[in-house]
């Protein structure tokens, strides 16, 4: 197992669209300042943003933990939300349970999980209806064009 170089946790406020995206922005700044290769950086930022948005849209609160190792970036996003009843469906492009209101704000195109899957090298979702969802994503360093 590669050594952990850095670990930071961030609180995500559910329902706060005004602040949405700030955490993934912060993660991007950290990775940029560390000189992480652009292609990997981009993938991490997209995954982090989608995960952050999911918490903002559906949950009361959540945490995003960012871990950097020699080989990869790991993101762990846990929320106290409604959970996902049908994971398979949630991974289909275009499937969304977003309200009209969210869509009007430009969110909820049903691209969240599919987009995360596309950008992460590993993605695991654990969910329990009524309790919450946990997403684990891994993006390898130095192996993307």
């Amino acid at each position, binding site marked *: 197992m590669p050594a952990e170089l850095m670990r930071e946790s961030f609180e995500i406020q559910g329902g706060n669209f005004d602040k949405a995206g700030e955490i993934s922005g912060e993660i*991007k700044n950290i990775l940029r300042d560390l*000189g992480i290769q652009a292609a990997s950086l981009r993938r991490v*930022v997209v995954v982090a*943003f989608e995960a952050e948005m999911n918490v903002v849209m559906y949950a009361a609160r959540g945490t995003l933990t960012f871990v950097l190792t*020699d080989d990869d970036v790991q993101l762990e996003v846990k929320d106290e939300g409604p959970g996902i009843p049908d994971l398979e469906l949630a991974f289909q492009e275009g499937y969304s349970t977003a309200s009209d209101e969210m869509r009007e704000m*430009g969110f909820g195109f049903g691209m969240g999980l599919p987009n995360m899957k596309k950008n992460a090298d590993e993605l695991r979702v654990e969910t329990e209806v009524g309790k919450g969802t946990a997403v684990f994503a891994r993006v390898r360093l130095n192996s993307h064009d």
Partner: protein
Amino acid sequence: MIELTHGFKISTDKCRGRMQCMRACPTHAIRVKEGKARVIPELCIDCGSCLGVCPTEAISATTINFAELDKFKFKVAVASPALFSQFGMGDTPVQVGRALLDLGFDAVWEYAVDIELIDRAIMEALKKWPGPFPLISNSCPVVVRLIQVAYPSLVEQVIRLEAPRDIAGRELKKRYSRELGVRPEEIAAIYLTPCQAKTISILQPAEGAKSHLDGAVGISEIYNDLLFIMRRNAGKDAPPKPLSGVGEWFLWGAPEGEFPNLPREHYLPVQGLTDVMKVFDDVEKGKIRNIEFLECHACVGGCIGGNLTVENLYVARTKNLRMISGMAEPSADFRQEVERRSASEDFSLRGLLKPRNAGGDVTDLRERVTRRKRADELLKALPLLNCGLCGAPTCRSHAEDVAFSRADLKDCVFLSRDRIGFLRGIYGGNNPDGLDHQSRQRHGERGGRDDG
């Protein structure tokens, strides 16, 4: 690392270390140590925010002055469209072109052709581009440098085409060396620029290739002379000299005009560094969907808002709109020239744009993490007031400077008793209770205490 050249210079003699530039710099590239400002080259994006704010006028653009052009046999002006918006409503582009000839240029390039060519090339590139979207315009050198420094993941989305001014330089050298029988090196392609950033894009193009232009003259430098000549010429109907165009004018230079052929819902014009950065933040997160092309200008108002223009931006904009509304259909000659060059020239960018390494010489990830953690630790000792007295614009940048071994933590006035004494030695104010000091504070805004 290759040494980076920048589009301005700071005169150490004139600099009084007043820190206005340091506070204005959007990328925190300036430090004021021992009372003198200096630039961290790899962080500077040549935006020019520092140029106008210096109270002692110590920062100047490295444009060339007109006399330096005498070494060339044949001087051709490539005028930024912004130039034509700088004069009165009644002053036509043809009159401006004629004044440029009277000023000493041997020809004024028909730059509209180059702009049309790149406009077309962008449309073609967009059709072929597989993604990721949006593609980002590269005509503003500041935007390109901002991406290299702060948005490394967007580097691949910067459109890979030459800027129109550069293909103009290439073509005019070819044409005039053929027509006049002189070597291309004897022909000067001079860009008349609305900002110092275009100078740097000529001296040191971001993608690493050599520019086809030989230099840039700021619009503000020749403005008075041009105006004088135009007033003198008023009413006269002198024929233009042979071998000279007079510069048709066009839409570029104003915001929302670069790419009139793109469908509006897929194309987003953005102006001003602050807004450009906001949009780039969202592009990185994948939040900007449905947009194929971003036209970005670091200056509010686009190039007519450049810091080497003279006219008030909004007045210039009015003039620009007037010219657009009165624009004639392109002539047959113009269309023919566009077709001819379009068929024979390659407009793809000659170099490859890469992110700039702003982390100095440390490349090892572990070392960088250690350094960052150290900066985070150091920051806890600092007051977070961003007073700037340490010589760095923010406490965060001071902590980073210390972690990067380019500053001493004790430069912070909160951490060292000696610091204030040291600063008094540089800035004066040794007599804090004296009336003299107070009056100097009040009246000393422009140079009043410089000898102190």
